[in-house]
C-alpha cells in the first residue's frame, strides 16, 4: 500500500482524475464528447494555461506572483490604446511588453533585494499597476481591438488545421518555458533556489539575479497571454485585474503538482492541472451550473489542492516524518 502511495505523485492523481471526469462527462453529458466541444474546451483554458506556465516558473522558485492578472490586463490595454492613438502596432506592442517586464523587474527587486515576502510584494504591485494604469494610461474599463491591428487578430481567432490559435500559443509557450526550465542554467538555478535558497547561495548561485529573472519571465508570459486573450475576444477588459482570474491561475499550477514549497514540478504539471480544471468547468457549464456555484466549487478544489500539496510536499521533511515536536 505504502509503495503504491509513494509511486503516486500528485501529477498522476490529477491526470487520473482528468481521465475519469472526461469519461464520466462523455457518458453522462449529451454533447460533451464531440470534436467541436472539445476544441472549445481547449480554447477556453488556453489563456489560463499560458498564465499558469508563467506562474509556475515563479512558484518553482518558491515565490508567487499575484500581480500577473493586473500586469496582463494593463500592459495589453496600454499597447492597444497606444495603437488606437496612432502609434505603430509593433512599437506599441514592444512598449506594452517592456512595461510588463518592468513590473516583473520591480517585483523581483522588491522580493530579492528589499526581501519583502512575495505574497505582499506582488499583491501591492498588482494593485499599483491597476491603479496607476487606470489613472494615467487608460480611461475606460474596456479597450477594444480596432481593425488597425490587422493580421495580429489571427493570434486569437485563427486556426491551423482546425486547432484554434490560442491553443497553439499555449503549446508554444509551454514548450519554450519547459525548455528554459530544463536546459538552461537559469532554469536549473530556479529549481535550486526554490529547493533551498541557502544551499544555492553557498554553492555560488547568484540567487538575487535568478529571482529577478523569474519575475520578469512571468510578467512577459502574462503579456503574451493578454495579447492572445484580447485578440480572441476583440477587447481587453482591465477589470479582470480585480477578478478571481489570478486565483484560477494559482489553482491550475498547484493542482497539477507544482509545490508551493518550491523546487518541485514543471510545465507538464501545469498542463495536467489546466486540463482537469478546463474539463470540469466545461462540464459544469453544460450542466448549467450557476457562475457563483462554479466559483464556490473552484474555491473548494483550490483548498483541497493546497492541502494535498502540503501533505505530498511538506515544507520541512523532518517535521513531516516525526510530526511537530
Amino acid at each position, binding site marked *: 500500500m505504502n509503495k503504491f502511495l509513494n509511486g503516486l505523485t500528485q501529477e498522476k492523481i490529477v491526470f487520473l482524475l482528468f481521465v475519469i471526469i472526461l469519461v464520466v462527462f462523455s457518458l453522462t453529458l449529451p454533447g460533451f464528447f464531440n470534436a467541436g466541444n472539445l476544441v472549445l474546451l481547449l480554447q477556453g483554458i488556453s489563456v489560463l494555461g499560458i498564465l499558469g506556465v508563467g506562474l509556475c516558473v515563479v512558484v518553482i522558485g518558491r515565490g508567487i506572483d499575484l500581480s500577473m492578472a493586473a500586469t496582463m490586463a494593463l500592459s495589453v490595454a496600454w499597447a492597444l490604446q497606444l495603437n488606437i492613438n496612432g502609434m505603430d502596432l509593433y512599437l506599441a506592442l514592444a512598449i506594452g511588453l517592456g512595461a510588463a517586464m518592468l513590473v516583473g523587474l520591480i517585483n523581483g527587486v522588491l522580493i530579492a533585494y528589499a526581501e519583502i515576502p512575495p505574497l505582499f510584494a506582488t499583491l501591492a504591485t498588482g494593485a499599483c499597476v491597476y491603479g496607476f494604469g487606470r489613472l494615467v494610461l487608460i480611461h475606460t474599463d474596456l479597450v477594444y481591438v480596432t481593425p488597425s491591428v490587422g493580421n495580429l487578430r489571427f493570434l486569437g481567432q485563427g486556426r491551423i488545421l482546425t486547432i484554434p490559435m490560442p491553443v497553439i500559443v499555449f503549446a508554444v509557450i509551454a514548450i519554450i518555458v519547459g525548455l528554459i526550465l530544463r536546459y538552461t*542554467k537559469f*532554469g*536549473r538555478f530556479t529549481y*535550486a533556489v526554490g529547493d533551498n535558497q541557502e*544551499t544555492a547561495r*553557498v*554553492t*555560488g548561485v547568484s540567487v538575487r539575479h535568478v529571482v529577478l529573472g523569474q519575475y520578469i519571465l512571468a510578467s512577459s508570459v502574462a503579456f503574451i497571454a493578454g495579447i492572445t486573450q484580447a485578440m480572441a475576444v476583440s477587447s481587453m477588459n482591465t477589470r479582470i485585474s480585480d477578478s478571481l482570474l489570478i486565483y484560477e491561475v494559482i489553482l491550475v499550477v498547484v493542482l497539477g503538482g507544482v509545490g508551493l514549497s518550491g523546487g518541485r514540478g514543471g510545465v507538464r504539471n501545469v498542463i495536467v492541472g489546466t486540463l482537469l480544471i478546463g474539463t470540469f468547468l466545461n462540464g459544469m457549464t453544460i450542466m448549467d451550473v450557476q457562475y457563483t456555484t462554479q466559483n464556490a466549487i473552484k474555491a473548494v478544489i483550490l483548498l483541497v489542492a493546497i492541502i494535498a500539496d502540503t501533505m505530498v510536499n511538506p515544507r520541512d*521533511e523532518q517535521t513531516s516524518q516525526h510530526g511537530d515536536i
Partner: protein
Amino acid sequence: MTAALIEVTNLTKEYRGIPAIKNISLKFEAGKVHSILGENGAGKSTLTKMIAGAVQPTRGEILLDGKKTTFPSPGDALKNGIAMVFQETSLVPSLTVAQNLFLGDEKVFNRLRGLYISAQQLLQSLNFPVDPGAQVSSLGSAQRQMVEIARAVRKNARLIIFDEPTATLTPEEKQYFFDLIDRLKLRGVGIIFISHALEEALAVSDTITVLRDGEHIETGPASNFDREKIVRDMVGRDLSSQLYDQETKREARPYGEKVLSVQNLSMGRMVHNTSFSVYSGQITGIFGLIGSGRTESFKVVSGVVKRNFFHGGIVYLRDKLVRFRIPKPAVQQGIAYVTEDRKVEGIFETMSVSESIGIGEMAAAGNKSWFVNRKKMNKSAEYWSKALNIKSIDASSSVLELSGGNQQKVVIAKALVQNPQIIIFDEPTRGVDVGAIAEIHEVIKGLAEQGLAVVVISSYLPEILSLSDRILVSRQGRIVEEFSIEEADEEMIMYAAVH
C-alpha cells in the same frame, strides 16, 4: 548526605538508535551548585534538557523528592519547580520586564500598574537593579538573564539549570552573575551549571560532573578537581579513538604557498580581530569549542556571511586583496565552503545526485554558457560518484534517499567539482556513519596531497589530530594558539581552547 532534590537513574537518550546519553545516574541537591562539564557533544545539553522536560528520555527514571516523575513538556517541569535558563533568552523583546515576568499568568483584567508593583517587589527581593517598566530589547545580556532568573524564582523554581550562562557576559556582568548564584543558593535553590569555562566552574561549584561521549566519567566535590584533572577527564578516550590514527606524532606535510592570509578580521560579536594564514599542500585544522568563532571566521572569508561594515579586517587570497559579500565570487575565485549543516545549506532535497553536482559545476563556470550540458553533467556525476564512492542506486536517485555519509559526499562533490584552490570543511563528518568517516578522511588527505589548501574545522579533537598538519585553536572569536602536529597533543589543545 542530604536528600536529593532531583535524582536521575540510568537515564538514556537515543536518537535513531544512537545513544547520546548512556545510563547516567546523578543526584542534584538543594542549595548546591552542580556543574556539568564535557566537550561539545558530550551530552551535557541532552541530559539537562531531559531534566527540564524539553527532551524525553528513551530509558531511565527521573525522581523528584524521591518519587518517580515524568515531565512531558517544559511547562510540566516548571510546575514542579524546575526551570531552565537558555543561552539565548526566551524573553519577548517588545514587552516590558514586568510583562515578561508575568507572561502567561495575566489576569483577565490585567492592570499594568499592579503588574509593575509586583514586579518591582520581586526584583527588589532578589536585589536586581532592573527597571520593571523597561523594554526587554533595551536591556543588556546580564540584565536579561536577571529577568529570566526572576521569572524562574517567581514560579518558585527549586532547581534552575543554566546552559552556558556566561558566554555572552562581560567580566563585570559575570561577577554580578556569580553573586546572584550565591544568593540563589542561600534561598535553597539547587543549581545546575553548564559551562565551557573551567575556572568559573571550579570557582562556583560545590559538585562537578564530567561527561564524555554521553557517558558519566566522574562526579565529586569541586575540591577534588583541578583544571588538569578536568581536562584529562574530558578528553581521555579509549574506544572512540580506534578509528583515528593511534600514533599522533607523525610528520607534517611541508608548507606550500601561502594561499590565504587573514589580518585583524572582525565580525559582529562572534569574530574579534583574528589573524591567520592557510597554506597549500597541507591541512590546517581549526579547533575550538562551540561559540568560539571558528565557523564564523571562515564563513566571512568565503562570503557566506557578510562582514559587518564597521568591524572590517583584511583578507588576501594569494596576493590579491579580496572582500566577498556573497559566495559567488568566492566560489569563482577558488574558495569552496563545505557546510557543517547539510540540511540547511548543503543539499538540494528534491534533486538527484547528478543534478546537485551539476548545480555546483554550473555555478562555478560563471557566465560562459547559458545552457545545461546534460551529457557533461552526467559524466561528472559519474566521475565524482566513483571518486568519492557515493553509494546510490544510480546518479539519478534522489539525494534525500541517501544515508548521511553519502549525502555528505554529495556536498563535498558539489564543492570539488568547482575546482577550488582552498576548500573549507566545516565539521566534515558530523552525522556521518563510521565507515564513511574513514572514506571522507581519506578524501581530505588526498586533496592536500594534490596540493590544495585544505581547512578542517572540527570540535572533535581526534579528528583534528588525525588530519591536520597545523592546528589553529580558536577561542572567544580569535585564533589564540598555533601548533604543528609534531608538538601537539590533546591536552595542550584543549587547554588552549578553554579559558
